[in-house]
């Protein structure tokens, strides 16, 4: 099928970014699934990206080693960071982790070894889109199997009511920290993958807006099941491209209108599907049932 092959070739980079954003959304899901609103993952991603890029560029390390370091270094940093900040709840944790992200970003901006605000360029391109998809599949598999395990139940319990979970003998701090570290590793790994895909890393690519983007993917897709964040990432990555094509087909210039529509659709999803896109079938079923029962009652 030459058509399909052509399609994949044309949109290769789009598919790569869907995969990357999916990974980033899952890194946020790691903390969301036990009720922790952390915005630290853009910072972890930056650390992973720089670690990986520096290893290949300056130390000529083999690519797999660079990827491994990109996951491990942020995970190591997540332990001493998580121990104090995971004592905070809700919005306070979010604020503290935003602070961490800014510290990381400003650190790289002021670090002459990594060219400050300009960042690193001409990183050897070693990431193939299929690698991203394999990584995404592995993370999704792990999260899928976590569901229903003893740890999976413990995480859900912590999300629902942490104090009650503790009185069932669940060491909540240990679980929250583990997922914080896992999220950091996934974000860092995605950062290292991205650095070797786009040839460059610069501190401003890992700022506050990146952190919020990841969170929005997860929330829009649905943060109660492991595949929700991936659906959200795919939807929000494709949407601007689809709108660009749509506007062109209508003979409009795809400029500000596209961003407006993008925002409007996002708002609609949040308003009408508070449990994310993956709850759409359930919401429709409930609507149909309600209509049917109303008809039956006359």
């Amino acid at each position, binding site marked *: 099928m030459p058509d399909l092959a052509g399609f994949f070739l044309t949109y290769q980079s789009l598919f790569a970014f869907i995969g990357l954003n999916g990974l980033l959304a899952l890194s946020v899901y790691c903390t969301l699934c036990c009720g922790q609103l952390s915005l630290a993952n853009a910072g972890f991603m930056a650390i992973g990206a720089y670690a990986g890029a520096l290893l290949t560029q300056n130390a000529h390390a083999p690519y797999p080693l660079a990827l491994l370091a990109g996951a491990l270094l942020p995970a190591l940093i997540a332990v001493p960071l998580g121990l104090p900040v995971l004592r905070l709840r809700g919005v306070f944790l979010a604020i503290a982790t935003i602070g961490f992200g800014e510290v990381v970003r400003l650190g790289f901006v002021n670090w002459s070894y990594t060219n400050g605000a300009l960042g690193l360029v001409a990183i050897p391109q070693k990431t193939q889109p299929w690698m991203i998809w394999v990584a995404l599949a592995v993370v999704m598999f*792990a999260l899928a199997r976590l569901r229903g395990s003893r740890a999976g139940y413990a995480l859900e319990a912590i999300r629902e009511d942490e*104090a009650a979970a503790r009185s069932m003998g669940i060491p909540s701090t240990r679980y929250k920290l583990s997922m914080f570290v896992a999220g950091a590793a996934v974000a860092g790994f995605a950062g290292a993958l991205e650095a070797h895909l786009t040839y460059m890393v610069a501190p401003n690519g890992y700022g506050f807006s990146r952190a919020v983007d990841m969170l929005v993917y997860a929330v829009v897709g649905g943060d109660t099941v492991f595949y929700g964040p991936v659906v959200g990432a795919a939807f929000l990555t494709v949407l601007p491209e689809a709108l660009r094509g749509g506007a062109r087909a209508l003979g409009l210039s795809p400029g500000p209108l596209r961003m407006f529509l993008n925002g409007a659709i996002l708002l609609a999803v949040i308003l009408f599907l508070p449990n994310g896109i993956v709850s759409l079938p359930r919401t429709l079923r409930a609507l149909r049932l309600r209509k049917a029962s109303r008809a039956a009652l006359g």
Partner: protein
Amino acid sequence: MLLSVEELERSFGGVRALDGAAVQVAKGEVHGLIGPNGAGKTTLLNVVSGLFRPTRGRIVLGGERIDGLPPHRIAALGITRTYQNIRLFPGLTALENVMVGAHLVRPGDTLRRMLFLPSARADEAKAREAALQLLSRVGLRERAHHRVSGLSYGDQRRVEIARALASSPRLVLLDEPTAGMNAAEVQAVATVIRQVASTGQSVVLVEHNVQLVMQVCDRITVLNFGKVITHGEPRHVSSHPEVIAAYLGSEA
């Protein structure tokens, strides 16, 4: 004595919710904790289960001091509880709630599940079967797959009891387990409590339904203003003049 609480004191600002309270619970005993509103009954449960640290005093479980330990450590040593204001996991089903309660007795299986080892599947099936059996014991087998947020008040309390029993604790603290239940449901809970005690587990029961307390408790401790007024067998306690005064008020 399985549980021995001595000279327990807990203050909130200037209020002494517990002022030298002492309770002894034997193995296999159902121990009632009664007293007027604000007597410190729930505070006592909160301190024993580790939710609050005591200001002073000792709590000893099976020869081991547990006062000041975090709640999950106390649960691991064998004390679980229910809450006066029901604290189930609302988004989970009744069965899932009880499965969470089995955390301490279910072996860790994350890695084994990733590798699809048959032992992980067997462990999960066993945990599920045990949870279903507990739900039958409290009469909720047919509601196992309902979300608890949609269950009635009485049913929610029974799920909470099943959840507290799921780790086979040495001691269960029940905080007003029959509030909001009808007479038949209360009797069902009474039966469950007696069953639990007959297997050698101990129960501390905080309850306003005096009739139930007199019916199921082996011994009773009466609290007022954080202090013990009296303790002993139901017959002894119900005729104690200070208890009558505390409940009905005394002529000045």
